[in-house]
């Protein structure tokens, strides 16, 4: 069973059918002038329109890129280029690596991280202090965090950025398709693979008022060489399908995660991370003392259960997860669940029934029996 859907959710039949239809009808190069190309272009335009509507954006200010990473790089570079003379970027300490790498690159290291509290909410006073210095090109603040699920209070964040006249770049790559789209942003990035669309596509929404310059050789083209037409079509259909079932799915995911949170909190030496209420409905991380993260994931994989991890032990760098470190959570023994609409109550029950024995076994193997 697949419980690691954060950032890459399984594709539904309807999405697969859309992808196939996109290949059959949209194989031609949308940039050319004949009938076949016009059909491909119409598919992309219709899909972009649907995506824009779901994001609360306008189609002509909604751009497609080759991946969420490429989207973040371009939006960061584009806004930075239009803010000449303001050469510092401010971001929360729990932004995605992709955001921080892009920001660090375009600002040549002039990047300030604003701390978050134990639940993962950005410290608003600290943010306002940073924005008060008139050298900020833009502020990057996530909507929902991909590891711990916490939703930022974007209304308060946007008050601070608007007061300082600093553009607000919102990373909504973990939240679109899992609840209402955020309203407070000047630029926003979304990831279709996170809502069950194909991987290899990123979406950028800009407000008409947000100034940006093409900081790349291809001018207004956000996806040099063009996007994969069937991927765009399938992304729009997948989001449409999610939004049609949004209320029911959200309530069910929220209930399942509530169950995981309350059950895991009862296990000895286990810490449940993130805001229990102001959070994404489908993401939860808990961390287990004295447990090796890699061993934990391998063991669950042998049991046929796919989960994610933010554990330092599972990465080649041995750097602890910045997100988990920023909220004071353990760097080891982490289990991150990303649920999707196909996850059943029974699957979650099976995981919860299995975990105490897995944790106890791994603690014994690590030479730490009876410590928790």
């Amino acid at each position, binding site marked *: 069973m697949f419980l690691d859907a954060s950032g890459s959710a399984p594709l539904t039949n309807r999405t697969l059918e859309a992808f196939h239809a996109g290949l059959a009808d949209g194989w031609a190069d949308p940039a050319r002038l004949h009938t076949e190309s016009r059909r491909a272009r119409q598919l992309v335009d219709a899909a972009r329109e649907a995506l824009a509507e779901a994001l609360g954006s306008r189609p002509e200010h909604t751009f497609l890129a080759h991946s969420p990473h490429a989207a973040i790089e371009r939006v960061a570079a584009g806004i930075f280029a239009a803010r000449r003379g303001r050469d510092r970027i401010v971001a929360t300490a729990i932004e995605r690596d992709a955001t921080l790498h892009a920001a660090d690159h375009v600002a040549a290291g002039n990047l300030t991280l604003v701390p978050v509290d134990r639940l993962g909410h950005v410290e608003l006073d600290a943010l306002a202090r940073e924005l008060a210095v008139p050298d900020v090109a833009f502020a990057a603040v996530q909507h929902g965090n991909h590891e711990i699920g916490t939703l930022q209070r974007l209304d308060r964040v946007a008050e601070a950025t608007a007061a300082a006249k600093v553009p607000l770049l919102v990373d909504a790559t973990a939240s679109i398709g899992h609840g209402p789209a955020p309203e407070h942003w000047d630029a926003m990035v979304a990831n279709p693979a996170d809502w069950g669309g194909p991987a290899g596509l990123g979406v950028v929404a800009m407000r008409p008022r947000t100034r940006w310059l093409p900081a790349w050789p291809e001018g207004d083209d956000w996806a040099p060489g063009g996007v994969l037409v069937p991927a765009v079509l399938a992304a729009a259909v997948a989001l449409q399908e999610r939004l049609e079932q949004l209320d029911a799915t959200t309530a069910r995911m929220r209930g399942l995660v509530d169950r995981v949170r309350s059950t895991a909190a009862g296990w000895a030496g286990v810490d449940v991370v993130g805001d229990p209420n102001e959070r994404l409905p489908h993401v939860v991380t808990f961390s287990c003392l004295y447990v*090796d993260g890699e061993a934990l994931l391998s063991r669950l994989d042998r049991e046929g259960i796919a989960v994610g991890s933010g554990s330092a*032990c599972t990465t080649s760098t041995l750097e602890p997860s910045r997100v988990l470190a920023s909220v004071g959570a*353990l760097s*080891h*023994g982490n289990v991150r669940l990303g649920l999707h609409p196909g996850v059943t109550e029974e699957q979650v029950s099976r995981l919860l029934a299995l975990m105490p024995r897995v944790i106890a076994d791994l603690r014994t193997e*690590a030479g*730490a029996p009876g410590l928790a």
Partner: protein
Amino acid sequence: MDDAPVAGAGRVTVDAAGLLCPLPIIELAKAARGLEAGTEITVICTDLAARVDVPAWARMTGHEFLGESETDGEGVALTVRLR
């Protein structure tokens, strides 16, 4: 490596240099077992994940994290006070 705690006047040092997470925390927890409240334990770590894990351990187990300091060699010294 000898990881037995070195007893002092209410102070104990755990040498977890060279160990990767979660082993430093396991050594810390073993050392803490049976020691009285008020004892200060310093863990010497080279795996920098311990800088995150030792404070988190203290919070989760009801002890107090006092802070980190440099060591003579590589790594950091992280100190907790048992409650």
